[in-house]
């Protein structure tokens, strides 16, 4: 790489290549004219137009010119950098030029394709875009990408089926795994379920072997009854504090259970959803791993440091009980983290019309699982709580807490199939029981699902479309009347059943907010953790080195959880196998001379990548944690952060180039790389036509757009300014675009105060698929421009020119 840096501080020799892209560009833009124009720009040594710049010949031409003409900066005016920047960067590198000395002008998606019928204006725009690219490339600096070492250890948070699978996969690959579980045993929800759909195999029978594998695996260190307290560091080098809460039972426990007999305190067992009791000293279920007991100190008589009862102590022959056990905090270092913290089930007690908690025979689907389970509180007999008899009819009510205004809006994914499975389980044991399923839609979309649905219908399960509006109880018999409308037959029904099962939905964990903060994750509006890309990076979290698996990411069944867990393990494994990652050289470099250590940059950083050392008056950037959004750079008032590849000087140079002529007729647009720039690309691909007066400047995130850039554009006489980013909550950099919003709102206030029409500054949220949104915003802004008077332009120019500079 060292040879690439020979270009530093040499005289600028810029090469410009204008691509025809067949007729894609040349059909609208006069490419020859653009290249002639480019040839006259400062420092441009070579300017050529070319049919296909990206072809092998096109690339060879650039490489040859770099050597022949000793070019040290390259501009290619062609398609979107999102498409071919890597191609040309590679070509530069092959010719011995540092890849950070390359810049692209997007004259296809942002020009020829969107101004098909305005050839002259499109050519003028292409010239402008090339001019801006040349202005920026002149200020580009060579950079080397830093390498970050990846520790070859992983941590898995949550030991349900997803966490178990991820841990086993990683451990089998040969990596050390720390598996952290909040509950006293691993197993999660799957351990509570009786049978699994669509194959109907016994849940615990297939889970228990995996659980004991985890317990035995030499590469897995298991922490149960433990919680993550703090996460520091970044991809490759996380430092995680884990709080190991005391069990009050030591490793000497042989799980004989003598203590349980002696314990005088009973409580409902969480594992059986309160349908069975446990003692204050207990093991959650027979197959629990680790196979040892735990004392629930909230229940135990020995609270508040008083030893009132010693019955378990006396009963334990192996003297394995230790009431003095203290919580331990462990500091673990890992390279990758998999978050598999699972989900909770919806609590239907708020739906008063279904009478859950009022009518004993209204139960939830999770309670049903424990009732039908042979190891459960009723020994597998489907008894109804009121009289402990097998009911002659059972109703299942779907979508309780899902797809509704009263609960969550989303579909919980598993409840339809779970109910179908449950109905078949009843039919298997008690064929005479009449079964009704009240549904909105039956979603049997997976492999083998439709067969199971058909089987249920064949077995005589009655499916009625239309949820009951209300359940009414007969106080004497505790039988239930279900009243509602059959929406297929358009008639009202009143159905009498012995027991009703509410098919409750899946909800994000209550502590997912805490987990989100700990691991710098982001959540969808539904509350589940968001993946880095919904299609192409579905198990990566937006923060590097962190991966998602199981219901923490979205509601899903066992098969999908296992699939996702293995995928997450593979993704984490790739990082650890490589042992290092390179970080794109677009991270900020602090300039200590300018820095006043105010710490504002650290406050806006979505990744906690900036460390402020107030004592030593230093700001440091943890390069591996930084994603390069640049919102710190926009926040800094003192030019103390050098945002590599998107420096203040480079962006200002682009603005200057674009506003050199006819600035008052132009819209200067700042678009973020991931959503709005891509949205504008999409508008191009779809040939959506919009006015050609817009000039787009690309930043990685809208958070990079410093108010100074906007003010500078106005000071240069720009007619209007557009700042566009991802939709709030969808930001590629977690929440950096909230800073954008704040800054634009401040600017609007300022403009109002100065008597400048604030319509001239627009903020747009547009996703990569919302090309029309971008196009229509530009049309709308063009209308504003048309009404603009020269006096107004002059006013904003003068006011901001005076105002500008700040310090």
């Amino acid at each position, binding site marked *: 790489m060292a040879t690439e840096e020979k270009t530093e501080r040499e005289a600028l020799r810029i090469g410009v290549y204008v691509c025809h892209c067949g007729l894609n560009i040349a059909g609208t833009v006069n490419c020859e004219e653009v290249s002639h124009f480019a040839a006259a720009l400062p420092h441009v040594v070579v300017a050529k137009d070319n049919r296909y710049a990206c072809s092998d010949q096109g690339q060879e031409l650039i490489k040859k010119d770099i050597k022949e003409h000793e070019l040290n900066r390259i501009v290619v005016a062609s398609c979107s950098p999102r498409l071919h920047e890597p191609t040309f960067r590679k070509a530069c590198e092959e010719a011995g030029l540092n890849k950070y000395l390359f810049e692209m002008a997007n004259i296809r998606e942002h020009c020829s394709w969107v101004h098909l019928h305005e050839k002259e204006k499109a050519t003028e725009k292409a010239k402008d875009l090339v001019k801006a690219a040349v202005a920026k490339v002149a200020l580009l600096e060579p950079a080397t990408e830093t390498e970050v070492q990846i520790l070859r250890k992983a941590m898995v948070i949550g030991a349900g089926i997803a966490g178990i699978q991820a841990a086993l996969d990683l451990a089998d690959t040969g990596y050390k795994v720390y598996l952290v579980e909040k509950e006293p045993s691993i197993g999660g929800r799957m351990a509570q379920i009786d049978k699994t759909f669509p194959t109907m195999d016994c849940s615990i029978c297939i889970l228990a072997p995996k659980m004991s594998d985890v317990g035995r695996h030499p590469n897995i260190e298991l922490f149960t009854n433990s919680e993550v307290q703090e996460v520091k560091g970044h991809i490759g080098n996380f430092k995680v504090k884990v709080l190991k809460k005391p069990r009050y039972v030591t490793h000497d426990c042989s799980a004989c259970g003598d203590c349980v007999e002696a314990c*005088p*305190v*009973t*409580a*409902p*067992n*969480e594992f*059986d*959803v*309160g*349908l*069975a*009791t446990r003692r204050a000293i207990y093991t959650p279920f027979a197959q629990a791993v680790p196979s040892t007991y735990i004392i629930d100190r909230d*229940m135990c*008589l*020995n*609270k508040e440091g*008083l030893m*009132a*009862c010693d*019955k378990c102590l006396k009963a334990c022959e192996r003297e394995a009980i230790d009431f003095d056990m203290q919580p331990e905090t462990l500091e673990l270092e890992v390279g990758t983290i998999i978050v598999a913290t699972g989900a909770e089930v919806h*609590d239907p*007690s708020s739906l008063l019309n279904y009478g859950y*908690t009022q009518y*004993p025979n209204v139960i939830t689907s999770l*309670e049903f699982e424990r009732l039908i389970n042979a190891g459960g*509180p*009723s020994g597998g007999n489907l*008894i109804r*709580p009121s009289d*402990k008899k097998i009911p002659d009819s059972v109703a299942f009510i779907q979508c309780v807490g899902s797809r509704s205004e009263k609960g969550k809006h989303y579909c919980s994914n598993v409840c339809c199939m779970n109910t179908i499975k449950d109905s078949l389980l009843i039919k298997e044991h008690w064929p005479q029981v009449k079964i009704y399923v009240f549904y909105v839609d039956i979603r049997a979309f997976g492999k083998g699902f439709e067969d199971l649905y058909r089987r249920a219908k064949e077995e005589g399960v009655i499916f009625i479309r239309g949820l009951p509006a209300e359940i009414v109880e007969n106080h004497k018999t505790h039988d239930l009347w279900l009243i509602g409308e059959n929406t297929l037959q358009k008639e009202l029904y009143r159905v009498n059943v012995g027991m009703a099962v509410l098919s409750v939905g899946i909800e994000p964990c209550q502590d997912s907010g805490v987990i989100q903060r700990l691991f710098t994750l982001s959540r969808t509006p539904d509350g589940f953790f968001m993946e880095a890309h919904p299609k192409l990076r579905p198990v990566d979290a937006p923060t590097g080195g962190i991966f998602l698996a199981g219901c923490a990411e979205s509601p899903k069944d066992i098969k999908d959880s296992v699939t996702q867990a293995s995928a997450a393990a593979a993704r984490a494994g790739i990082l650890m196998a490589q042992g290092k990652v390179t970080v794109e050289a677009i991270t900020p470099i602090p300039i200590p001379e300018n820095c006043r250590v105010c710490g504002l940059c650290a406050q806006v950083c979505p990744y906690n990548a900036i460390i402020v050392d107030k004592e030593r008056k230093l700001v440091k950037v943890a390069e591996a944690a930084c994603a390069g959004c640049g919102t710190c750079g926009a926040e800094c008032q003192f030019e103390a952060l050098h945002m590599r590849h998107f420096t203040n000087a480079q962006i200002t140079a682009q603005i200057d180039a674009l506003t050199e002529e006819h600035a008052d007729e132009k819209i200067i647009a700042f678009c973020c790389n991931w959503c709005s720039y891509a949205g504008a690309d999409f508008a191009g691909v779809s040939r959506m036509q919009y006015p050609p007066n817009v000039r787009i400047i690309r930043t990685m995130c809208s958070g990079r757009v410093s108010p100074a850039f906007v003010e500078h554009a106005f000071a240069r006489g720009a007619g209007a300014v557009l700042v566009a980013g991802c939709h709030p909550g969808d930001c590629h950099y977690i929440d950096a675009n909230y800073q954008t919003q704040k800054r634009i709102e401040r600017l609007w206030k300022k403009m109002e105060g100065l008597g400048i029409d604030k319509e001239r500054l627009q903020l747009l949220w547009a996703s990569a698929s919302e090309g029309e949104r971008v196009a229509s915003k530009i049309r709308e802004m063009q209308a504003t421009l048309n009404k603009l008077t020269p006096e107004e332009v002059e006013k904003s120019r003068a006011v901001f020119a005076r105002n500008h500079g700040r310090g």
Partner: protein
Amino acid sequence: MPGTMDGVDVSQKLWRKPLDAEKVKLTKAKIQIITDLCKGCGFCIEFCPKKVLERSDQINKKGAYPPRVVDEGKCAMCGFCTAICPDFAIYTVEKTCEGSSKDGEDK
């Protein structure tokens, strides 16, 4: 509705009376108080982990107010009252006839 149901502490979330609540064999206690030995220190009342006792309004021979049983069904027979009573005035014995009294209903 947190409280007790047949001697089982239930919480808001796990509201249902466990199916095996009646089958749970906990030793039922008979609390014996030798009222005239009591000097009314109140340790047993204060430290009973199940809060089974309260101060009575009957004066004893020593001129003290001995404890009285509020809810014998809640007694877990841990024997802590016996251990901390300075005057050997309280002890518990196991009830022999099982299930004869229906105490310990929810409050």
